[in-house]
């Protein structure tokens, strides 16, 4: 963890962000599955209780509320928004033990599972429901244990977890940069969901680099963020040309 979580944004070179094009998204769920696989997100034999599901990348179904033939639907993948509001994110502001902190050098909101006391205040404070609680001990079928990602620690029962923008991939990229004599603070990497998306609907990169694709897309006329009025300043942008989708993003404001 570098930088102070309590300062205003540091003079960093990078601010990792994501753009998800809803016009391209088919709702196939590959991003969600890839995220689960990559980050060792455990699951239950019976996943019917969706309010207790562990999910870092949830797919929401959006509907325009009209009747056929005007009916429209879309899928909205929702990772952690890695809120960039000045001073604090909603979750980092409330955690009593500094288990969730924003790295001011990257803008990534991290969660330190081994420090989390499981008070769930961060879950309560997050308007995006981006956090899940480990209600049970994490288990995988025996045949799947060999497929666990070695770079990501499984989380124990009684702690909260959430999307980290595949922080471990960033660390690997930084290590690689150091070995190659490059600046580790400006590396680019690809989270698992971006890699898995067959429609190339997800773009990831440095929002601070005006030449990056993600920064350009974030300024696109189709771009919007969810609940802008809350001033949580999400670093996840969505693209859509459908007005009814954009209207839903901020309670019609």
């Amino acid at each position, binding site marked *: 963890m570098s930088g102070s979580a309590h300062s205003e944004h540091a003079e960093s070179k990078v601010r990792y962000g994501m753009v998800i094009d809803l016009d391209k998204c088919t709702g196939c769920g590959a991003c969600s599955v890839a995220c689960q696989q990559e980050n060792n997100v455990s699951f239950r034999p019976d996943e019917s209780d969706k309010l207790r599901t562990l999910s870092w990348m949830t797919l929401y179904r959006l509907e325009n509320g009209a009747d056929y033939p005007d009916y429209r639907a879309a899928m*909205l993948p929702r990772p952690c928004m890695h809120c960039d509001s000045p001073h*604090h994110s909603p979750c980092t502001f409330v955690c009593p033990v500094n288990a969730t902190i924003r790295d001011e050098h990257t803008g990534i909101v991290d969660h330190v599972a081994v420090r989390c006391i499981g*008070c769930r205040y961060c879950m*309560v*404070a997050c308007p995006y429901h981006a956090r899940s609680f480990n*209600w049970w001990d994490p288990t995988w079928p025996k045949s799947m244990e060999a497929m666990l990602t070695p770079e990501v620690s499984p989380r124990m029962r009684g702690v909260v977890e959430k999307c980290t923008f595949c922080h471990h991939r960033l660390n690997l990229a930084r290590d690689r940069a150091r070995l190659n004599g490059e600046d580790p603070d400006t590396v680019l990497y690809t989270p698992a969901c971006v890699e898995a998306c067959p429609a190339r609907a997800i773009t990831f990169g440095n929002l601070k680099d005006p030449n990056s694709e993600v920064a350009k897309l974030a300024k696109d006329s189709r771009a919007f963020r*969810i609940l802008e*009025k*809350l001033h949580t300043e999400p670093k996840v942008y969505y693209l859509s040309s459908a007005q009814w989708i954009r209207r839903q993003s901020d309670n019609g404001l």
Partner: protein
Amino acid sequence: MDKALIPEGVKRCPLPVFGLWMLFLSAVIAWGIYAGYTVLFKGLNVTGLNNYFGFGLYITVDLGIIALGAGAFFSGFMYYGLSRFFPRLKELHKIINLAVIVGFCCYTGALLVLLLEIGQPLRGWFGYWHANVHSMLTEVIFCISCYAIVLVIEFVPIILENRKLDAIKPLHIFGHNLHEIMAVFAMTGTFLSFFHQGSLGGVPGVMFGRPFAYRTGFFIWPWTFFLFTLSAMACGPAFTAIICRIIEKVSRKTLVDRSVYELIAKITGSLLLIYLIFKSLDTLYWALDTAPGFGLKLSDFYRAPYGMWLLFAELGVCGVLPIILLLTPQTRNSNGLLFLGFFLNCAGIVINRFAMTVEALAIPVMPFDQWAVYIPTWAEWAPCIAMLAYGAVIVSLSYRYLPIFPREKELNP
């Protein structure tokens, strides 16, 4: 042996009757301990909590009883701090011991429930070690544990007044000296509890991503910080009065002068009035400014089963009505109406704590999200009910073996 422990000159029920009562309470506590063990052993999956309702019955009960236990800090503040300037407040001397005991039960009971509430109870001390100074919950952790220690210190001299313990000279001197400096602890407790009650209010108030709970405020404190403190001051002494009345009813004795109830009614009624004015202003500002600013209407926040009736119950039935009952001399003269006023006062504050925790989470902030409902399981009810039984055990033992009511002998010749 039992008779030798009972304060001189007072009568208590026969030991077998008391034993049966203790047995009943022990059974309830055992049920709660079993539930607690289940939660610790199996995890919070045995509760009704989920990813939407991270806070539930445990937190509601914690917040509720901490408010009801505020009689200890506020009575102490009035008696030790303000009675020099307002001699009428010296009347509280007749009930101050009970206020301390009730506060002790509430705070230690809340700590026990909190132990179950967190997913990793063995890491509870991280709140001190990795403290986030910006988090209201950090302030809660510090203040609740420090104030629980203060309440233990305040309770010790009362225990040492037991006939047998008082006969031991070193203990008598120790207890007497503690009494002498009790004002210091009472004021320390006032300071701690003020911030604790406030930071409990701050827990929902600072969540700027949650429009139902979020409140603007004064410097770093949201309005809920002050509203929680004020409401706790308004209901704490009322709860102490209710407990006192229950003991009177059960023991069929008069334990405090009626003037004490009258005084508490005037104090809590006035404070409830002040609270209700500020609470109404806060609600209006939130409904007319804060919520619309987030694209939400007042009606968006109230849907079955957490309908608008909750707001009416909290501010009307349990707000305006007890103010009328407690501040009108005619209704105050009637015991039934007086204690109905105290009860409604306490019930309103508990509803408020429920609304600020559970109801606040039912409302989907994202427009395409779902409205969720939370139903507590037995594993949540049992420890909470057991905590009440734990309080009843402490109060029963204290009443039987400690001289907590200085006027009991004179009032029951």
